[in-house]
């Protein structure tokens, strides 16, 4: 029982840490990592839930199935978010570049 609680608590803390980072930090990579930490926290709680101390020490298979599915989802979502981060970065750099060029050309023209 204690073990389960301990794992669950760790999971909750991880979730909270991830959430905090996601809100506070602006770097895209950190944000994506934060989402992953959150997900891991939830999975940890799920795994802890699977343990049923009553009677035979049986193991509930449902949370396991959930964790596996969750991991698959989280991997694909991470991949997508990474692509997004790259694109945004690229575009904002381009934006910056364009603005700078624009300013430079304005200067050259003496405006």
């Amino acid at each position, binding site marked *: 029982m204690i073990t389960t609680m301990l794992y669950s608590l760790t999971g909750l803390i991880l*979730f909270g840490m991830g*959430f905090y980072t996601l809100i506070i930090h602006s770097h*895209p990579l950190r944000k994506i990592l934060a989402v992953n930490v959150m997900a891991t926290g*939830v999975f940890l709680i799920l795994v802890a*839930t699977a343990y049923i101390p009553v009677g035979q020490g049986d193991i509930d298979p*449902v949370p396991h199935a959930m964790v596996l599915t969750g991991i698959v989802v989280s991997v694909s*979502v991470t991949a997508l978010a990474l692509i997004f981060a790259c694109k*945004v970065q690229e575009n904002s750099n381009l934006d910056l570049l364009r603005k700078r060029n624009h300013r430079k050309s304005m200067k050259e023209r003496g405006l």
Partner: protein
Amino acid sequence: MFSSDTAVWIVFPVILPLVAGLLCFLFKRGTFGIALAAAIGNFFVVSFLIYQMLVYGPMRCYIGGWHPPLGISLRSDGPALLMLLMTAATGLAITLYARGYFLFRISDPLRAQRHKRQQHYFWPLWMLLLTGLNGLFLSADIFNLYVTLELIAISAAPLAALSGKPASLRASYRYLLISLIGSLTYLLGVVFLYRSCGVLDLALLQNLAGNRLAITTALVLLTVGLMLKTALVPLHFWLPPAHANALAPVSVILSALVVKASFYLLFRFWFEIFAPIISLSSLNFMGTLGALAIFWGAIQAMRQQRLKLMVAYSTVSQLGYLFVAFPLSMFVDGGQAWSIVVFIALTHACAKSAMFMVAGNVYLHLGHDRIKSLKGVRSSQPITVFAYGIAGVSLMGLPPSGAFIAKWMLLSTSFASLQYWWAVVIAGGSLLAMIYVFRVMSNFFVIPEGESSKKNVSLSPLLEWPPLILALISLFLGLISPWVLKIVLYKDSGLFAQIFQGGLP
């Protein structure tokens, strides 16, 4: 196996778009044909499912023969099927409209190339999104719902980014992250619920038992997660940029369908699973947020300079009505509560689709959507402007639109239960809607001086008719309300699930 009374048919709204999405992904040509076939097929299957439910009652389908608690099951009942019908009808219109949108002035080589690239991604993603939506409405267990939520998020975010502009990229990146936070919060809520109840099936969850604190925590987590996805004020900040910067067909999908999905789920949780432990004050809290949303969204909509942003803020405002229904639903029986929400959702889906389509048409026609310079559009695009007017009227909740029926029910409940302040909110909200709708309308009616108003840009019927038809549907929805009421009342009693409550069969 495929006789008309089996539950197998429920699978098709999920399978059809999924297969179509995969095919669209594989093939370079003919993607529109595949998508259209899937959309039409989906529409017919959904109509059939409704017929089936009216004849044989709500159905349940256990995928692969696995029964709960282990297996996945899909089920049809009144509210779910109406949401499916909403998705199918608007989905069909969206498919046609998107085709017209991508074909617009294809003779311009630059535009042709851009549209080709966008189309290449649009069709598979749209079909996947449709799969997710249909799956969400039909799913009968809370974890499966998580998966569909994620499916919706990972197909909606790239769709929102399709236009490729930096602003839309940023907005959709934020949209993706917000969706992920929402889904993970939801998942945490699912875990809490599972820990205390030991089941995932919606019907089984209806007789909740277990640790009160854990259940309350689960409720809070589920609610926050879904509120974030539904963009209820004050968690609405991500919606306007994401919806307004997307391509027109995508804005339609996001505004009309995607936000409804998470709301539908929220409502199911509050009024079916958690109903016994919900307190009046928490309902009032949700209602207050809804009222805030109505006013804040409308005020913002009035202040916008761009048509698409105006329409997006109007979504924020209209979503508020769905939450104002919370405190009032307490005082009506379950079926009627659902019918209020369903009427608002259906009307909003049709009217908002029409509005975003109109905004798209205006954008294609003028090359911008600044509200101040819309003059002459009335003469060059009469059908589009007409569609805008009708959609606006439905949004304002004038009779005989579906929103009018919903407002009538809300008002009469608020008077019957002596909560007069909600009446003020509802009536005030319609007036504000009038102001932002007609602010644009009067700009359409300005007759340009000097220059000839006809620029000879004719829009294809694919661009003009879907919004008009959707707007007309939303306006006349009130007249078919007896049928809607009849369908809404069919509920999944959970009998099927209870048979197998004992464990694995």
